[in-house]
């Protein structure tokens, strides 16, 4: 692992982070955060938890910001995601206005509204990790699903790099969402080898 990497600050934005676990993403993001911080990259995790809101300093290089849950009654999951957007934004803005941040890595579609709205304002490289798409989660044709697909489309088009955990998902993203395959990288984020590979991808110029 290169110790002379040029990265000084990274924000990881995730809908789940321990102790909140909805899928493997939670543990993967935590391991990645610890890996980055051990490599002396100041890492901010901006995440959501439905029962707590705090800023927790784990070490000098790792800070976890659990956003407030100001709108807890929602008419749908998509409404919840849209209402959480402002809390993610407030947290991210407070970091990027005061810290040197080179890259922001978003996990899963729940974080996409932030990318879409601020895509042209971010000075940082933007990375997005997809573990599924709405097309694979729910095949039914409905305005609700079409809305999420459109959000995915806009988000996928806005980022510099997309990591996916399977070849099949890479195909869906390049064919159904018409994303340039050079922006899509297959990588199962979860172990040290994958973190090292990801770090190399982080360091590549966009």
């Amino acid at each position, binding site marked *: 692992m290169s110790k002379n990497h040029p990265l000084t600050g990274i924000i990881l934005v995730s809908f789940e982070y321990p102790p909140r676990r909805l899928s493997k993403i939670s543990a993967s993001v935590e391991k990645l955060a610890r890996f980055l911080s051990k490599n002396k990259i100041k890492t901010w995790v901006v995440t959501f938890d439905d029962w707590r809101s705090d800023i927790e300093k784990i070490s000098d290089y790792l800070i976890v910001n659990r956003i407030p849950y100001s*709108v807890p009654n929602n*008419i749908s999951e998509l409404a919840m995601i*849209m209402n959480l957007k402002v809390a993610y934004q407030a947290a991210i*803005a407070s970091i990027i206005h005061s810290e040197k941040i080179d890259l922001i890595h978003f996990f899963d579609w729940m974080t996409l509204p932030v990318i879409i*709205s601020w895509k042209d304002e971010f000075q940082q490289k933007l990375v997005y990790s997809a573990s599924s798409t709405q097309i694979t989660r729910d095949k039914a044709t409905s305005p609700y699903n079409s809305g999420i697909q459109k959000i995915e489309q806009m988000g996928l088009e806005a980022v510099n790099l997309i990591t996916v955990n399977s070849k099949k998902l890479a195909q869906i993203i390049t064919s159904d969402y018409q994303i340039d395959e050079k922006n899509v990288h297959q990588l199962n984020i979860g172990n040290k080898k994958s973190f090292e590979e990801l770090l190399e991808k982080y360091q590549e110029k966009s």
Partner: protein
Amino acid sequence: MTLSILMLSWEFPPFKVGGLAAHVFDLSKVLVKKGYEVHVVTCSFPGTKEYEMVDGVHVHRFDAYAIPAPEFLQWDLNMNLLMEIKSIEIINKFSIDILHAHDWLVASAAIGLKHLFRKPLLATIHSLERGRRSGLFNDGQMMLDQIENLLIQESWHTIVCSQYMQSICHFSFIFPNDKMTIIPNGVRFNDFSIELSSKEKQIHHKKYAQENEQIVGYIGRLVPEKGVNVLLGAVTNVLKAKPNTKFVIAGEGWHRNELEGISKELQIEDKVLFTGYLSEEDFLPYFNVTDILVVPSTYEPFGIVALEGMATRTPIIVSDVGGLSEIVDHKWTGFKVPPDNSDAMAEAIIELLENNDLRKRIIKNAEEKLTHVYDWTIIADQTIKIYERIFDEWNAHSWKTKADVKKYKQRAKKK
């Protein structure tokens, strides 16, 4: 000091749903006359331009339907994302000093912009969900209530249209009174005070009533909180005393069928006319031929229709609720009756129909109050004071982007 303002409003003429569009437009026009640069970001509408300058106001529109949605609330949340993108484009192109958000419908975009650009955010709260439906009964309503609360909490300062609204925000959201300013709505007095010739009056009167009938009118949305059922409940009693009276209900809404049902049930259909929406050309003449305008709302954060009545020299009877209580001084600028009380409403209508002198006095007093309190120039001046105050507070504060620190230092040097 002149500042540039970005107004966020989901509706703007020619797209009008409630009174918000007219409020934003009327305020913006006067601000422009006073030297302010005003940009409005709003939803597109078939036939409207993406950008146009209307009476000096920069109007920017975007495709609000680009993200599909199954229903209105979800549509609004999706729309906010698109409004935020458009607003970023505007802020980067024009030098915006203050963000001014109107109601929960634009909260998400406004709050996002506030954090991104670290600009002072002013919110005008025109009404609240807990009042519109007399309580919160489902997730959709609770969500709106929480969004309204969030917008107020996130704003540098909040404008409310009445003392009633201030007290609701204060007690419901535990929000400090010194972070709110009451600025009432206004009315374009010159536009509304046009008097028809007697011949024109005759023509328009015929559209609604017999020549010998006096008209008691209602105009507005036909939704439960507007209390049209209370007016219908007063009809029989009024007709006993004043048989030559016609009740003309102008406007549309999902409650219309039920109201027409009540009218049938009470066997007053031949004395009650539901006109539906009035066209632009019928709008002002309707006021001119109306002898008494009734505003029977059970919830009304302000009640701009009362001002429109006053401006058209139509005596008004209002429910003693919300902002209406503050607009009307009983038996001086209008009549106030207890809400949801058809008997009291009937008594007031009869008294006013029978007493010409009282009607004339009320019209004169109402006109005087309008020019001193509800004129848009006065309201714009009050708004400007808020803009300047929050801008000065923000300017003295360190909470701003590095680019703005530089920009406002240079601006201060130039002065």
